[in-house]
Structure formats: structure tokens, C-alpha cells
């Protein structure tokens, strides 16, 4: 290090560059930037944000970026919970799409009662949100007990709600498909008079709370410790089962919030089609963020960036007028590339290349 620091400018630049490349957020951010650049290339006006007016004459921000930020809300919120579940239980919850349907169903039932076109809300929205979150957390608790207490593999345990969840959501609504009063729509769209879409505000709030919790509690340390070595953790006074359970409940809370935002977007819920296939997008977001799906250490910022990356990809394919049925194929192709780039084999291959081409850089071995 000392040798290279007093050397020429190019050397120190190389060092900074190298530190940048080695940073754990480099690949997730780089890929997001790359996708955005492609978008700009296709559509030079991609980054433009304008202030317009909606049909009611209220000021609203309009633009592709705003759409992406707004539409990624559910994905990002779920990715936060999924990151913790992945880290602690070394597996994934595949039931999040179905449990969003349950939470959404509960919210609609609270707001609409047994009517299909109520003109007023049947209960305060805050009550609906709370009960929706409670429903999500109950689902999380169910999954959590199966995983932590009965030691069922997360994917198998969550297969139960994956299969049954959407029907349960339909039952929660009493088999009806009600549409809630327009006031409920503020949370998935705009609050009249305020130009920023509400989902973006909700995302900011959830992300802020997440980082606050990670800073002010030991959730992060405990989750990592249990995911890396649960035997050691239990000998250090931790209760691995309880911590795994807790992460599932937290994911359940995320499901509740996501269900709230999603059902507010069109003020109605079709439990069988709401957030289709989102569980796989969420898991991909976690993987794209540079997290090992085998658990242990996690990178929350990475998962959040991963969520936005996937949303950017989806909206890019939509603007390119790719046939809706063909979207998954393109998505899959791009994701394969991304995941392979981040795989240990490719990483170590490029790592070797770097050390061979720049043998003068002193700290290569220490960190590798």
C-alpha cells in the first residue's frame, strides 16, 4: 500500500478503481446504471421528469423514472423482508405473492364489507392497513413456525401458502370482487395536491425504518450469525429458531404493506392475478443485490437496488413493445447473464486476471 500511494497518479487511480470494483455494491449498481443507459439510448427522453396535471387537475410528476420508482414499491419492500429470511433460514419464501393476495383480500373486506360498490369506506384506512399487516404477519408466522420449529426447508414450507394463499385471499373477500371508494386510491397513486406518487413515499419510509432498525437493534448481527452457524449462535446465547421465526414475521409485515399499496393502486383486488410471479422477482432482487441465496451475510442496500433493477428491466421490455408473453424469456436471458457474472467462478477468474495484469498492487492477496 505505502509503495503505491506515493507513486504516480495513474497508480493511485487504479487503486481507487480497484477498491470501487471490489466494493460489494459495485455490480448491482453498475448493472442498474447499465440498464438505465440502454434506456436512454433507446429513448433519449427517458430521464425526463415533468410536472403535469391528472384528470382531476392536481399536479403530478410524470416520467419513466417516476413510474419505475413507483412501480418497484412492492418488489423493494418484499425484497427487504426476503433478504432477512434468506440470511437467517438459508432458504426463500416462495409464498409472498399468494400472501399479498391474502393481505389484499383482508384489506378489501375491511374497507368494503359485503358490498361490491360501496360509496363510502366501511372502516378507517389505518385499521385496514393494520389488519392487512396482521394478516401478512400471521402468514409469516405460519411459515416461520414450519421452518424454525419443524425444521422444514423454507421452500417446501412456504409451498403450502404458495398453493393455498390466493384461494384464501378470495375467501377473505367472501368470494366478491368489491371496488373500494376512491379515497382509498391515494396510497397507490397520488394524494391530491402532492405531486410525488404515494408509493414512492411509502418506499422511502419503509427503507428508512429498515436501516434504522438495522442500526438500532442487533437484528442484522443476529440474523447473520444464525445464518452462518446456528450451532455456534446457540452456544452464544442466541435462540436460532426464534430469530428465524422473527425474520419470517418481518417478511409478513412487508407482505402486509405491499398488499396495501398494491390493492390501493386500482382499489380492487383479484386474488388470482394480483402481483403474478412476484416471488421469483423478489428472490432475484435479493440475488442481484449480491446476496448468497445460501444465507449468512447479507447486503440490504444491494437487495433494494436489485429490486429497482428488475423493475427497470420489466418496464424497459414493456416500452420496447415486447410481447407480454415473451417478456419472461428476455428477463430470464438477462438475469442469467447477471447471475453468472456474479458467480464465484467468474469472479475469481476476473480476480486472477486483475492480479496478473497488475502485479505491483500490493494488497491483492490480503483481500482475496
Amino acid at each position, binding site marked *: 500500500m505505502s509503495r503505491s500511494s506515493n507513486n504516480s497518479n495513474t497508480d493511485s487511480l487504479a487503486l481507487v478503481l480497484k477498491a470501487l470494483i471490489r466494493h460489494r455494491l459495485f455490480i448491482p449498481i453498475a448493472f442498474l446504471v447499465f440498464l438505465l443507459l440502454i434506456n436512454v439510448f433507446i429513448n433519449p427522453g427517458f430521464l425526463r421528469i415533468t410536472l403535469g396535471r391528472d384528470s382531476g387537475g392536481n399536479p403530478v410528476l410524470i416520467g419513466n423514472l417516476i413510474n419505475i420508482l413507483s412501480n418497484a414499491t412492492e418488489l423493494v419492500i418484499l425484497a427487504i423482508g426476503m433478504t432477512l429470511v434468506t440470511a437467517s433460514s438459508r432458504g426463500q419464501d416462495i409464498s409472498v405473492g399468494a400472501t399479498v393476495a391474502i393481505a389484499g383480500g383482508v384489506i378489501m373486506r375491511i374497507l368494503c364489507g359485503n358490498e361490491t360498490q360501496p360509496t363510502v369506506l366501511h372502516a378507517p384506512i389505518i385499521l385496514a392497513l393494520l389488519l392487512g399487516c396482521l394478516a401478512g404477519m400471521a402468514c409469516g408466522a405460519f411459515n416461520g413456525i414450519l421452518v424454525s420449529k419443524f425444521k422444514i426447508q423454507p421452500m417446501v414450507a412456504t409451498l403450502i401458502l404458495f398453493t393455498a394463499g390466493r384461494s384464501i385471499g378470495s375467501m377473505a373477500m367472501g368470494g366478491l370482487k368489491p371496488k373500494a371508494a376512491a379515497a382509498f386510491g391515494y396510497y397507490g397513486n397520488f394524494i391530491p395536491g402532492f405531486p410525488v406518487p404515494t408509493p414512492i413515499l411509502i418506499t422511502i419510509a419503509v427503507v428508512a425504518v429498515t436501516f434504522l432498525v438495522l442500526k438500532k437493534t442487533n437484528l442484522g448481527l443476529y440474523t447473520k450469525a444464525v445464518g452462518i452457524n446456528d450451532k455456534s449462535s446457540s*452456544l*452464544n446465547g442466541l435462540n436460532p429458531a426464534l430469530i428465524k421465526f422473527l425474520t419470517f414475521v418481518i417478511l409478513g409485515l412487508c407482505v402486509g404493506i405491499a398488499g396495501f399499496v398494491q390493492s390501493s393502486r386500482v382499489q380492487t383486488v383479484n386474488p388470482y392475478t394480483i402481483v403474478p410471479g412476484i416471488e421469483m422477482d423478489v428472490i432475484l432482487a435479493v440475488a442481484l443485490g449480491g446476496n448468497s441465496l445460501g444465507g449468512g451475510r447479507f447486503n440490504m442496500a444491494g437487495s433494494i437496488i436489485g429490486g429497482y433493477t428488475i423493475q427497470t428491466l420489466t418496464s424497459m421490455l414493456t416500452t420496447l413493445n415486447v410481447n407480454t408473453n415473451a417478456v419472461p424469456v428476455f428477463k430470464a436471458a438477462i438475469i442469467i447473464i447477471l447471475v453468472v457474472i456474479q458467480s464465484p467462478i467468474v469472479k475469481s477468474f476476473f480476480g486472477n486476471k486483475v492480479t496478473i495484469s497488475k502485479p505491483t498492487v500490493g494488497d491483492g492477496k490480503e483481500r482475496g
Partner: protein
Amino acid sequence: MRGIYKSFPGVRALQNVDFTLCEGEIHALMGENGAGKSTLIKVLTGVYTKDAGEICIKGITKPVHIKSPQEAQKLGISTVYQEITLCPNLTVAENLFIGRTNDLFVNWKKRNNKAESILKGLGIPAKPAQQLSSCSIAVQQMVAIARAIDMDCKVLILDEPTSSLDEQEVSKLFTLMRELKGRGVGIVFVTHFLEQVYEVCDKITVLRNGELVGKYQIKDLPRVELVAKMMGKELGDLADIHNKTQSSNRDSKEVIIETEGLSSTSGIKPFHFTAHKGEVTGFAGLLGSGRSECVRAIFGADKVTKGKLRIKGDNVNITAPIKAMKKGIGYLSEDRKRDGIIGDLSVRENIILALQVMQGFFKPFTKAQAQAFADEYISLLGIKTATADTPMNSLSGGNQQKVILARWLLTHPDYLILDEPTRGIDIGTKVEIQKLVLKLASEGMSITFISSEIEEMLRTCSRLIVMRDLYVVGELNGEDMTQDKIMYTIAGGVSQNVQKQ
């Protein structure tokens, strides 16, 4: 087997080891952990290839080269491991025959009949159509043996077959072993239960540190000498180095830990034990004698089933490690890799973990606090690490152990349990740790020190609890703490439970 050599990178696992097994004998292969028993067996069964030496088998003129377990089986050498290697979801008959033919079509009725006759012939209480997992572990083991026998094995290797069996099951297994012996099968029996060796074996071969110590007829080798040979000490050949300082006035000191008939789910027999302030106690005994299980019960790492535990005179009910930690107990576990380190976390996080957990979920240390703790102990214990941010995995074994030690010292326990703190680490670090133990004790900490190395225990402990086969069989202190006495006690001590009666 003659003059077998085998080395792994950095380790000489076997050096010039001879081993002879005759027809119709039960031959015990004995040695402490790391003595080379399993390596020798793996060379014999073709899992490892030998570096030098030769293996001769009756009826084959030339020395044989065994390259794979399949080849070993063809030569009539079969192994039954501690963990059952059969398929629990298949039936007994399927397990007996699976993988032995290439026939596409199988007449299962015929198979089942044949299986029945095999099982009957050996007196194994199982039905051919029964699913294997519904049999007891002992029966599963017997089925594995039956499979080996039916493949015309001449040499049967039983690697720790009795460790998960209860007494009745063990005696059933021994009946089967004697039956096979009568049929002319040579059996290699690996175990750490001394009693069992003297019950069924004819000869004993002892290994130590990869070298052959000797081959003995069972009647020529009293138990105490076997213990001595395994530990590598001749009786009477002793340098008296033990630490007498604290043994005299211990009765006047405050009692920190007291157990009364404590036992746990690990199978440990109820034991009585006291630890005083400023005292270093030790649990001595062979591997698997229950040393770790005793301290794990005190720490709440295994579920306590019976008995009482008093800490500083108060009855406590420890149901989980966190409760023990809050009462001032620290436990450095035996298996560093499996139960100690959190490999992917940084050195800093590994150091603060236990204290952090005691502190509570909502009170994380700030980064500066954590760094201060880490720096303090990194310099105090001389931990060699690039930074406190370095992942634990990239440290050497000795330094990892120091990190774990730091973790527990940071909690400032009244009673610290060190289970094999010096295993697998270099001699310099070992001495440092021993000195540290004595220093901590002189400052008033009560310490329990467990080690497989007797000298180390004699040097550091002021009182020794001696264990055999999950029983406490004696307690030595002061003048009695010599290697001779320890070995005699391990070999012939009377269990605490019997003493009480």
C-alpha cells in the same frame, strides 16, 4: 498389513504401522483421537491409497493394492460405520441386496425368502419386508453387518458401532460378533469404551500419533496399561509438574458452581461437582467419556433432565445458554469450527458476539465501542489479524481460538469453561493460553479446563474430576494428582453413583 505409511499435506498420519488380523478373532484397534485408527481403516478399505507398505491377504500370493472400497469388498473386506450408511427408506431385504447385482429384473419374493434365512441365521430380529427406518439403530447396524457377511466378507471392520446403542443393544451386537467369530470372520473393532474391549476382544493393537505402539493379547494387557499406552505414558515415568498452589485452602473459598446429580439428554450419568472461586478444575478421561457433556449440562447447552445446579449457593434452573451467561458462566466449546466461530463474520463481530447477546437485542454497541473492545483484546491476547474487519475464516486455528477466548473474557464471567482450548493449535499459543488460565484464576475467576493432554491438565488444574464411560469415577487433588493415579482411576475407579449407594 505391514509397514504402512500415509501422509497428508503437512501431517504424517501413519508411520510404519503393522497390523495383523487372524481368522476368527476380534481385534480391538485402540488409540486416542488423531492416533491414526481411521486412517489405517481407510487405507485397508481403499478409501485412501497408502504411500508405502504392503497388504497381504490369505489365499492371495502377491500383496494386494486396494484402490477403492468396491475392490476391498471384492477381497472380502467390509466396513460398518458409526453412522448407518444404508438407505432408511428401503426395506430390510432391499438394503441387503441393493447395488449388488446388475440385473434389471428382480424376483423380490425369492429375495425376501433369502433375506429371511440370512436374518434368521444370524439371529437378527427383523423382517425382510420391514422398512429399515422402523428398526432400532442396533438392528440397522446388524442389517449392515448381515449385508457385509452375505457378501462373503472375511474381514469385518466395525467403526465405533456401539456409540449410539444402549446396554442391551450392545450385548445383542456382541452376541452377533461372537457368532461371526465362530464362523471364522476376523473382526476389527474400533471403540473408545474400555469395558467393551475387555468384554469381547481377543487382541488389542494400540496406535498413537500415527505410530504403532504394540500388539497385545488381551490377558497380557491390564486396563491401566492400555490407558497408559494410549496416552503415551509409561507408568512411573513421570515428571511431577503439577500446580499445588491452590489445592490446600480451597475449602475456605467461596463455592461458585455446585451440581447435585445433574444429568442431561446427552446421556451423561448424574454427577456431583463443585467449583470454587479462584480454582482451576479439570475433567479428565478418554475421549467420549463424558467430559464435555458434564460442562455442557452446566452451561445449558444440552437439556438438563435431572438434578440441581447451584450458582453461588442459589438454586438456578438453566434452560438455555443465555441464562447461564447471565449468571456469569462462559463456555468455550470443544469443536471450534462447528460450535465456536462464526466464520463469515469479522473478528470484531466474533469478539463482541456473546457480550452483545447478553446486552440485548435493542442495545447494539456502536461501531466505536465494538472496535474498542476488539482492539483491547486483540492486543491483550496478541491475536494476529490484519484488521478487526478481517473475516474470521482467514485466521489460523490458534488465532481463531484466541478470538473465541476473547469473546468469553469480554463477558467477564465468574466461571469459565474451557473445553479443549488448546486442541489443534501451535505450542506457543498453547503455553500462552495455559499461562492466561493461571493468571485469570489468581485474579479470582473459577475455571474448568478440559484437555486430552494430561500434562496440560496437571500443569494448570488444581483438582481433577476423572470420568469413564459417562460416569464420574473419581476426584484427585493435591498429592494424588499424578499421571499414574489418573490412569488407575480412569481404568478402575468406582463411579460416583455406586459410591453413594
